[in-house]
Each structure stands twice: as structure tokens, then as C-alpha cells.
């Protein structure tokens, strides 16, 4: 038997089992602070989603762009009658039920949930509040003690705070912290980790914040899981091709957090000196 010539693409080469865009329908819309939250019905073949994962929304022909949009997933459920649905945190785009859009997902590695009962601190910054909230809810359901810290630069950039009280044992709302970086952040994060006596620190948001969260956790001897890729930040393809999110991790290996993450163990994203000192 001679092998098929290269260049003759069998239909199966891009068919089932491979990532590709599929159409979803918006079934409900809810305002969510600075943005919106939509539930969309998805084919059951799309698989289950977990906190920390995201969807990509490729640009349509009428709106050409160089990168897909990326939105955090904030909920997933499977109903015996209505099928599978995902909840997606989007910017305020004026969605209406019945709208249809194409998405690829669920993408990425989710926040891992500890097996033993522990105390967790979940920090979310602005759009990162969306996955943080879902992460806190899932941790709570599994019997962990959860503190949820929702952080934004000002009160206009928070997501919906009204429903968060139910999600965690303690909720901290922090604003006035400008886009992350610098000592005020380190101090605020350290104080939170110590005050909440957290065994595990989860952080979702800009990579600078998350790297600092990993540093704080390491300095306090705690475990951390942080997002090193921010969907929708406009600087990256989300599928590992553009190098926009490339970072170097322990062992000097380059990784693309949009593929192997977005959630990475904090221990692998520390700066060189701390890695060397370990």
C-alpha cells in the first residue's frame, strides 16, 4: 500500500476530535457590573468546562481583526432536557437572547481543586473577577473554606458584587489599587494571605498581578495557582501561535500560557533568584 500523497487532506484531518469553531445561541443575558454575563447553549459534544477556562470568539467577516476575542467562562451546567449550557463573561455588548455567535472552547487548563479540605483565598482583578467568582463557588461546593477578594482600580470596574456574598465564606472588596504592579500590591496581597490564613492562593487577572501573587505565596510558604494569560487583553491569539504571552518558567523552558495555562502553578513562574534559592 502506498501512503497517501502529502497535500491530499483526508476529510478526517480536520474533523471530529479537533478544535474548531461551533455556533452557540444566547439564552439569557444578565448585567454584570462593568460587563455582561450570558448563558449560551452549546452542543453536548463541546465537553465540560471548569473555572479558569475560556472561550475564543473568532472575528467575523464584517469585523476583521488580527486576533480572536477571548472571554472567561463563568459557569457550566448540563440539563437533561435543555442540554449543555455555558456562562460567559463578556464586555457590555448589548446581547439579546437568540443572538448567535461562533466560539472555540473550552480552552486551557482550569484551576485545580485540592482533594483535602483547605482554606483558600481567591483573588480576582477586574475581568479576572469572573473566573475568580466561579472558582470560589466550586471550591465552596467541594467543602473548602473560601475567601474571595474582588479587586478593581475603582468602583466602576468591578463585576457584579451583589451575588458574590453567597459564593464564599468571606468576601473582600478592594478598590483604589491602580493597574497592578509595585509595592502597594505586594503589601495588600501579603496582608490578605496572612489575614485569611490561606493555605492555597488562587489569582486571576493581569500577569503582573498574578506573578506577584505567586511571589507572595512563595514568601509565605503557601501554594498558589495563578493565571498567566488574560483572554481578551488584545495582545495574543489564545492558541499558542503568536508568542504574545510567551514566558520562561522554572527549568528555563519557554511556555505559552494560553496553551499550557492559563492557570499555572505559582511555583513555576517565580523570578530566577527565588527559583535558584529553592
Amino acid at each position, binding site marked *: 500500500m502506498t501512503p497517501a500523497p502529502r497535500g*491530499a487532506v483526508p476529510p478526517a484531518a*480536520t474533523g471530529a476530535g479537533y478544535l*474548531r469553531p461551533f455556533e452557540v445561541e444566547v439564552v439569557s443575558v444578565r448585567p454584570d457590573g462593568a460587563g455582561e454575563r450570558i448563558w449560551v447553549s452549546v452542543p453536548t459534544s463541546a465537553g465540560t468546562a471548569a473555572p479558569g477556562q475560556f472561550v475564543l470568539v473568532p472575528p467575523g467577516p464584517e469585523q476583521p481583526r488580527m486576533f480572536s476575542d477571548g472571554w472567561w467562562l463563568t459557569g457550566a451546567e448540563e440539563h437533561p432536557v435543555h442540554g449543555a449550557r455555558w456562562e460567559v463573561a463578556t464586555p457590555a455588548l448589548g446581547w439579546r437572547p437568540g443572538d448567535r455567535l461562533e466560539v472555540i472552547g473550552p480552552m486551557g487548563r482550569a484551576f485545580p481543586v485540592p482533594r483535602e479540605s483547605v482554606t483558600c483565598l481567591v483573588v480576582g482583578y477586574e475581568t479576572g473577577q469572573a473566573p475568580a467568582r466561579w472558582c470560589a463557588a466550586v471550591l465552596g461546593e467541594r467543602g473548602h473554606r473560601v475567601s474571595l477578594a474582588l479587586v478593581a482600580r475603582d468602583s466602576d470596574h468591578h463585576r457584579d458584587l451583589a451575588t458574590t456574598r453567597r459564593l464564599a465564606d468571606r468576601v473582600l472588596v478592594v478598590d483604589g489599587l491602580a493597574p497592578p504592579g509595585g509595592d502597594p500590591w505586594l503589601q495588600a496581597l501579603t496582608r490578605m494571605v496572612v489575614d485569611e490564613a490561606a493555605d492555597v492562593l488562587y489569582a486571576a487577572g493581569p500577569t503582573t498581578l498574578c506573578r506577584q501573587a505567586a511571589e507572595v505565596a512563595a514568601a509565605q510558604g503557601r501554594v498558589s495557582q495563578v493565571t498567566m494569560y488574560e483572554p481578551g487583553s488584545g495582545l495574543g491569539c489564545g492558541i499558542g*501561535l*503568536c508568542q504574545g504571552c510567551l*514566558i520562561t518558567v522554572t527549568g528555563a523552558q519557554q511556555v505559552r500560557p494560553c496553551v499550557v495555562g492559563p492557570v499555572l502553578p505559582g511555583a513555576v513562574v517565580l523570578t530566577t533568584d527565588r527559583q535558584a534559592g529553592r
Partner: protein
Amino acid sequence: MRADAMPPLVTPASGCGGTGPELARFGDPRALPALMLGPVGLPPAAGAERVSTASTVVESTAASLVYRHGPALPVTEVCDQWLPWLRARDARAVVAVPGEASAVLADILGRLRRSVDLGALVAVEVDLSAPQASSDPQHCLRVMSRTRELLPRDVGRHAKFDTRSPDLIGAARHAVAGGATALVLSGATPVGTAAAMAGPAVLPITVALVSSVREAIDQGRVPPVPLIGVGGVGDEAGARRLLEAGASGVQVGTALFTDPGVLWRLTSDLAPADRDRRDQG
């Protein structure tokens, strides 16, 4: 495959193709003529500064992307991880290498040659587009002949140029004299000194480069050699424009960021006509 055979019809562009597993989530890599690894470089020295976390992406608009060159993929990673990964899946790749310092180039090519998975390597793409490289035709000749010395003869040797070359035809002629088996012509356009622009906006530039080199080949100013166009190709129409202008292969860059499936579609759409053309050639 012989090095003087036609270059792969469709591949990702250098710096846009990931390392293999990323694209393999969207389709079977075996069905593609080749993937692209790189640009590769030597591994950073132990204790060196961590790679900057500044994004390679500077600005993106509807039709163009301004980017800085990202950190090179360490050649050790290519040899230890990605070539074995591709070979285990019966897939193949072009590896993009820098065409600047010949000691670095020799080290990289030596490591590739010693790799047990060399079978997955279709060609190396030597980047001669930097102004200091392309403005000196003798440098192009030296680099390409060094590449020929260091690699098995069945590995293709592609020389890559872009609009920065002050004498593209002269540089191309010397690269072919030095042993280039194909010329890669990139429409990516410099933005300042450290960045470049790519995307659908640069397709006319790529077409013009391919036409001008094809014309020079027809006039005997450059020895006959297949051309590969890269820059602005995102669909079949764009690819056909380049093939009609005289290219034998295309590379897809920024279009992959929103639609990696385009590689498989282009491969199946262009392959029939291409097979006829290659049979005639």
C-alpha cells in the same frame, strides 16, 4: 525528498507556527506539507536574564499587526522535544535559523544534523533579511554555502529576504550561488528599527517582491529557483495571487492566529493545481 525538489506548498510562517502541538489541536499535522519551527537560536546561557515578559505584539488593527521579534526557540528544545514529537506523528517541519553570525549558525546546524530525528526536517529557512546580512551579497553566499556544507544534501535550504534588502536581486543571486534551493520573500515591512508589520495589508508588497524576483529569473539575472511568498496570505485568493505572480509555495502567518484551519484548507484547495504544475515542471 531531494533538496532541489519543489519546496512545501503551504507552511506556517516563521514565528507563527508554534512548536507542533498547538497546531495539532486543530487538525492532523501529517496532512500538511510541513510545519514551521522557529526562529531557533542557541539556548540561553545558564543564569542568563529571564526572557522579557513584554509582549511581542505591539499593535493590531483590522488588517495589520505590528510585532517585535520574540525570543528564539532554543535549538536544544527543537532537537530534544519537537523534532521527535513530529517524527513520531509522521509529520515534518521546516526550521527557521538566523543568518547572521556564522559561528552561531554552524552551532545550530550542527546540533540539528546530529539529531536522530533529522528525518522530520524538510528544510532550513535561513533568515538573511536583516539589513546587515542582505546588504552584503558575499555574506549571503558564505552563509548559504556554510549551510550546504553542514546539512545533509536532502534537506532543503531556503534563503529568506524581505523589503529591507537594498539589492534584493544581487543578494538572491549570491544566495542561490551559495546553494539556496528556494528563496522565501517576505512582505513584512519594518516599523522603526525593532518592529515589523504583517497581516493582510502587506499582501501587495509580497506579490510585488515575488513578481520582481520572478522577472529577474526570467531575465537570467538570478538562477532558476522556486520562490515562496510570505506576508498577507490568509485565504485561497491571496495564495493564488502569489502563485500566479510566480511563487511555488506560500507561508501563512498572522491569518493562523484567528483561523489555524486555513492551513489544511489551503493545502487541499491548492494541491490539485499544484500537482499538475509540478508534473509539468
